[in-house]
């Protein structure tokens, strides 16, 4: 474990040409350097996502350029755009079909909270109602730099994940769910309107 190696000793050894590492570091380095996103976009945020993957911003520098058309081959779901209530069950279904370990970036105001359409009759008030989200990016839409930043934040998060012990990564903990119930279409709204295991509405008191 990296925690058991003295950092000073490690850098001293490295200076002498001996490179010491741990399984955890190797494992996380491998995972964070090849995050394959799921290839789908929902609204204008998707255009920024496409720009991020293209040559000018070049997501390939971070190992995320291989957008997969199948959830079975994807590690990362970038929820890029407005999630309508009609689309939400499909998003949850796609998330369930992704193999562990899997991560979610909620991109833009709509995916976070419904954004400007929050009070509309057809827009989900945030994808975090049904699936756990790792990184939120505000913006309408966020610039490609913001998505790159979110990607780097996610890499940092992966780097810090432990393989064993109490705080170990979710996919290594059998007790942690990796699939979440798909909401059903109701008469006016999705049923249930949120998954209470994942989401708790923020409470605020006003007078």
């Amino acid at each position, binding site marked *: 474990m990296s925690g058991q190696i003295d950092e000073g000793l490690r850098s001293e050894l490295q200076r002498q040409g001996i490179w010491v590492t741990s399984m955890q570091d190797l494992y996380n380095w491998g995972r964070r350097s090849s995050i394959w996103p799921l290839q789908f976009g929902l609204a204008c945020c998707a255009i920024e996502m496409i720009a991020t993957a293209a040559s000018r911003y070049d997501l390939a520098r971070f190992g995320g350029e291989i957008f997969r058309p199948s959830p079975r081959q994807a590690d990362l779901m970038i929820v890029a755009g407005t999630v309508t209530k009609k689309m939400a069950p499909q998003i949850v279904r796609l998330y369930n079909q992704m193999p562990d370990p899997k991560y979610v970036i909620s991109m833009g105001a709509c995916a976070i909270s419904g954004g400007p359409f929050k009070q509309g*009759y*057809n827009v989900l008030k945030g994808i975090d109602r049904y699936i756990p989200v790792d990184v939120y990016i505000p913006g309408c839409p966020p610039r490609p730099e913001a998505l790159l930043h979110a990607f780097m934040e996610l890499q940092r998060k992966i780097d810090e994940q432990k393989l064993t012990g109490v705080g170990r990564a979710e996919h290594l903990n059998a007790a942690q769910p990796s699939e979440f119930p798909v909401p059903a*279409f109701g*008469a*006016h709204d999705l049923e249930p309107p949120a998954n209470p295991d994942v989401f708790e*509405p*923020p409470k605020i*008191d006003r*007078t």
Partner: protein
Amino acid sequence: MTVESLEQIKARAEAAVPGSEIDIVHNPGPSRQSSLLIDNEHALAVARFLRIDPGLRLDFCSNVTGVDWLDRTVKKTVKVKKVIDGVEKEVDETQAELFPGYLEAVYHLYSMTHKHGPVIIRMRTADRADGARLPSLTPTWRSAEFQEREIFDLYGIRFDGHPDLRRILMWDEFVDHPMRKDYREPDDYEYEPTPHDDVLERAKQHYTARPQLDGAENIIAQE
């Protein structure tokens, strides 16, 4: 606009389709886009005329939309003669007239052949009931198919003769029609950082009242 005026189009259409009744709905707004109100029974024949008439040839239906008109009462002050204390007098009296509501479908037509348009036609339902019916103009303009489905979905107008009348934006299990003016969405208020207007009113019902602890409630105005 077309070379012909709406009055000329109306006259020629009424001549071409016997029995049809067309009204001109004037638009006093800045666009001045007046439209033709077509009776439902002859709508398909009139639409066919507008499409195939060599002078008009309105072969492109660019837009179909719905309008919801609620019941409205118009109050008028009328002078009425009344006998008061044995003397006949003219008295102002307020009369309220009720106009029942209806749903409307509006079609914007252009001609690719003659490069003119738009000619706007409308149809009105008898009432605002859930099963209000109108004839579908999809047989004349294929591009109306999805847009009539959208009107059916959001306003609840049933189009007779439509090849595939299903909901298009909302899911099939959805009930009610969300673009109707009296639509009330489910009260699923949770949290709004900057509530205002209608949202504020709705949010207030969910606020938990906070006790006044700042002492301001104890201040009494000095005499």
